[in-house]
């Protein structure tokens, strides 16, 4: 397979960096939203900067995607699978951008200070203080988190299906 069929190096770096960050974020999120244990504060303090970093990287990645488009899917892939692949990637991008914004908005609506790094750097609120809005955004954040996690599982499963079953070079285009 020629190197032209692979993702560019910046694309691969962004992909794998964000893969680790997003998985970490999902696990931190689901754990800190349930625990009453001693790691709660540390995890919350980590959740905010990590979320903002993901937002920045997702926007950077979107720009990079337009700059160096991904390699075409194998020509012999059935149209339905191509459509599913495209749709799932659009949804992944949408969630990567929406999740941090909903989280940021939720803290704003809850009337909380929004620490970015430790207690020293604060982000401005992006929504007015409104408890009803807070409750709505908090549910949205949870639902989107489950949706994103489901999409990640599908993405991993599909990638492995391409790599191990179809062996059509799709997985390799991101691994090397």
């Amino acid at each position, binding site marked *: 397979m020629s190197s032209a069929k692979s993702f560019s190096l910046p694309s691969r770096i962004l992909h794998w960096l964000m893969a680790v960050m997003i*998985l970490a974020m*999902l*696990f931190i999120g*689901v*754990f*800190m*939203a*349930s*625990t*009453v*244990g*001693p*790691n*709660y*504060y540390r995890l*919350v303090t980590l959740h905010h900067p990590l979320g903002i970093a993901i937002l920045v990287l997702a926007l950077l990645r979107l720009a990079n995607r337009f700059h160096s488009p991904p390699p075409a899917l194998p020509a*012999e892939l*059935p149209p339905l*699978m191509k459509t599913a692949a495209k749709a799932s990637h659009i949804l992944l991008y949408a969630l990567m951008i929406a999740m941090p914004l909903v989280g940021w908005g939720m803290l704003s609506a*809850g*009337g*909380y*200070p929004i620490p970015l790094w*430790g*207690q*020293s750097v*604060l982000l401005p609120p992006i929504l007015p*203080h*409104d*408890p*009803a809005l*807070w*409750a709505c955004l908090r549910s949205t954040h949870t639902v989107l988190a489950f949706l994103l*996690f489901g999409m*990640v*599982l*599908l993405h*991993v*499963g599909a990638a*492995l*299906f391409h790599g*191990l*079953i*179809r*062996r*059509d070079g799709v997985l390799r285009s991101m691994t090397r």
Partner: protein
Amino acid sequence: MATKPLVPPASPLRWLGVVAAPTALALGFLWAGGWLTPHRLTQTSLLDTLRTVDGPHPGFRRNHAKGVCVTGWFEGNGNAAGISTASILQPGRVPVVGRFALAGGMPFQADAPAKVRSLALRLMPPDGQEWRIGTNDIPVFPVRTPQEFRALQLASRPDPATGKPDPARVKAFRAAHPWLQTAAQQLSHRPLSSGFTDDTYRSLDSFLFVAKDGTETAVRWAMVPLQTIAPIDGHADDHDYLFRQLIDDIHAQPRQWRLMVTVAGRHDIIDDSSQSWADDDRQIDAGTLTLTTVESEEGGPCTGITFDPLVLPQGIVPSGDPILQARSAAICVHLPHARAKSPRSPPSPRP
């Protein structure tokens, strides 16, 4: 060109490879969320316990449900600035929104002298370095951990038949937690003041003050009234006498408290809020709180604010106290919000 089938034949081992990774991730996710360990105490199960004990009261805070909003200011004097860089502790005045309340999840409970009173504060300096404080008028917290908190709540919940806690259950809790006996005695023998305004409110949990050079000092603090402390007098027939008196007091004149910071001594246990600290610990008078207005919670300035004790300014960080983390974690699940007019609202100040 021969078209490849959508799903080419492959060995079961390869299929296992496809399924294994997502399955492992999903199991890890379920574990992290507590779904695989139903006995683990979570934010939801802790709040469910409170709801079981107090009954559901939608729209109200799950704990400290009956309360009123207050406003005023805090004036730092710089005495504690040497051990914490918090801007609030520097000389100067910052606006405050607060809330007086009775502990417990029942918004329409009757006032009584021995019920735990609380004062929550939101100090808002212009630099955005907010400090939220939750204080109670008890000397120590009755338990050490969130697990013990739940056990105590369940043990002391009122028996539907008598309306009082079942003595056998309370006794069983005491017997199973001998290390909490001192705290229980301190709590039952605590001096009671006449009302909200002559009461002393304590942080109970410990925090770390961080100085400019990074030195951490373990502290607790208390809001000590400048008003003369009067002994309790009987108002047992008035359902809302404590709140009425508070409203009258603040309407009559601004009320003040001194923020007294206690620095942990060598023998004090920092991460256990059920244990009191030594009497001869160093005390710092860090500033004065002045409360000038009191308003109903309905549409009041403290509505929709969670007094999360881990909203801290730069210069103050949490200690390892497990109760402190649990208070913050449980608070963030639920934000009280505007509710329909209730048949019997907690007292509203007269215009």
